């Protein structure tokens, strides 16, 4: 297949003529954009100068009245998805007014990032702007329960932002103090990345390993150093355990040395289980797998094999996870909850042509 697929792509690419590019227009447009960014940065710096680093901002939250008018209902239920500008659950939907590109489902409500990079808290019918991501740097959340974190600013002035949704809309911001990761495949200096939130602690990618920081409680940062000179790809942190990819293997342990080898990337909130997926085969799509993180033993999964494809995408609590499942010729996708070692149940279904966006884990 490698041959067939690669040959086909190489043939197509090789037959392509040289692109007709306008470098002068790139330089002109680029200078214009850079100047606009510079003006914004200067304005931002003037405000930031009045605020010490890593302090609790008294709340930058502002009422988003334009969006409030668009609210169509209140929400509930354990599972949710977004389609265009609307979040849906089994019990209702809410339109935030702008196309959603990423969101988190917390016990309190939702935190969404729209196409402009605006970050909003959605609780019932109340929508409040709480932050601003840079759409050009990608929009990504990390969360654990009600604690939600994201990165704001451009790579030259990045800061973390973290919110305890249960406590309201107050956002803590600050510099992470990470040593930038250098990787030829992302940038000279990779953008700051929050790998995961475990409890109230944020875990940052760092050139030296992983940096743990709990700004909500003003605890000092702690470096978890890489071992053996090779920086691992950290997949998840939960329950004090770290799942990492190193030398082609996934390992789970309290630090970046040794640990249990398990094929999975998504730890349950208490770190007891690891969620994984079996690769698709000729006659079956991906299927969920669950492992005991302490022993590496597989735990039976009720839904495995029940549908042609079942994508386990998120832990809901310590022993319940969410699955999006469908059969090969089915015109519905099913939102399913599964108990580890127990039964699964279909919560609701949506047509397959709905552009479903799932919540961040």
């Amino acid at each position, binding site marked *: *297949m*490698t041959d*067939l*697929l*690669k*040959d*086909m*792509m*190489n*043939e*197509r*690419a*090789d037959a*392509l003529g*040289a*692109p*007709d*590019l*306008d*470098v002068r*227009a*790139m*330089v002109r*447009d*680029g200078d214009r*954009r*850079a100047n606009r*960014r510079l003006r914004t940065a200067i304005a931002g710096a003037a405000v930031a100068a009045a605020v010490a680093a890593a302090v609790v901002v008294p709340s930058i939250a502002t009422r988003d009245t334009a969006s409030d008018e668009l609210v169509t209902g209140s929400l509930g239920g354990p599972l949710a998805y977004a389609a*265009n500008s609307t979040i849906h659950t089994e019990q209702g939907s809410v339109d935030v007014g702008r*196309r959603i590109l990423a969101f988190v489902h917390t016990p309190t409500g939702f935190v969404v990032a729209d196409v402009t990079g605006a970050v909003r808290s959605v609780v019932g019918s109340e929508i409040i702007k709480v932050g601003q991501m840079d759409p*050009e*740097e*990608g929009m*990504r959340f990390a969360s654990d329960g009600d604690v939600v974190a994201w990165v704001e600013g451009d*790579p*030259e002035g990045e800061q973390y932002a973290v919110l305890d949704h249960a406590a309201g809309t107050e956002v803590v911001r600050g510099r992470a103090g990470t040593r930038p990761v250098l*990787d*030829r*495949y*992302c*940038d*000279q*200096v*990779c953008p700051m990345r929050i790998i995961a939130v475990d409890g109230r602690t944020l875990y940052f990618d760092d050139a030296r390993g992983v940096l743990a920081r709990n700004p909500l409680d003003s605890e000092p940062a702690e470096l978890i150093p890489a071992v053996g000179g090779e920086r691992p*790809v950290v*997949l998840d942190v939960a329950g004090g355990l770290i799942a990492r*990819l190193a030398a*082609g293997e996934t390992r789970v342990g309290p630090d970046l040395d040794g640990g249990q080898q398990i094929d999975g*990337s*998504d730890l349950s909130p208490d770190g007891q289980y690891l969620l994984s*997926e079996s*690769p*698709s*085969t*000729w006659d079956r*799509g*991906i299927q969920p797998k669950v492992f005991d993180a302490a022993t590496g033993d597989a735990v039976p999964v009720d839904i495995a094999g029940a549908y042609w*494809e079942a*994508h386990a995408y998120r832990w809901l609590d310590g022993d319940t996870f969410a699955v999006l499942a469908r059969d090969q010729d089915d015109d519905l996708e099913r939102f399913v909850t599964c108990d580890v070692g127990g039964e699964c149940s279909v919560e609701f279904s949506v047509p397959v042509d709905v*552009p479903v966006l799932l919540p961040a884990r």
Partner: protein
Amino acid sequence: MARRDPADFAEFVAARSPALHRAAYLMVGERQLAQDLLQEALTKTYVAWPRLRDPSKAEAYTRRVITTTAISWYRRKSWQGERPTETLPEGTAVGHDDAVTQREWLWTALQELPPRQRAAIVLRFYEDLTEAQTAAAMDCAVGTVKSQVSAGLAKLRTGLGNRYGDQAHELLPANLMVVTP
């Protein structure tokens, strides 16, 4: 701080734009769209030029912009109700210029994959990036790359199976599904 040097940038464009153009074309399937995509991605690269002193970093940055922009463009198109109008080539009896027919079919099938799956496959199997490198280019987690590649290949496999029956096993052997970092 390094300055934004148009001459250096123009040199980079001349040297690397053909390769970047090819990858963009595989992701969007249309020559003009690929060219527009590259023009936009290189403009963003020029904005970031002062912190991209090493040309290899600039190329990686441009590739990431191409990938994420291609995905967002297709999302926008699908919301506007625009769908690919091409249909997969009609079946041809096995034995009739098979290789050409299979590649033609595979090209069309690749273009009908969802944009994230298509991008992941192009980066993994045309650009030969690792999963971690692909994740960086797509600005997503490694696990997402795994699932996108797996789902995309499964669709290609299913389509080929429906079309070529048992012969498809030879075209898409199962070991391709073992995706290593």
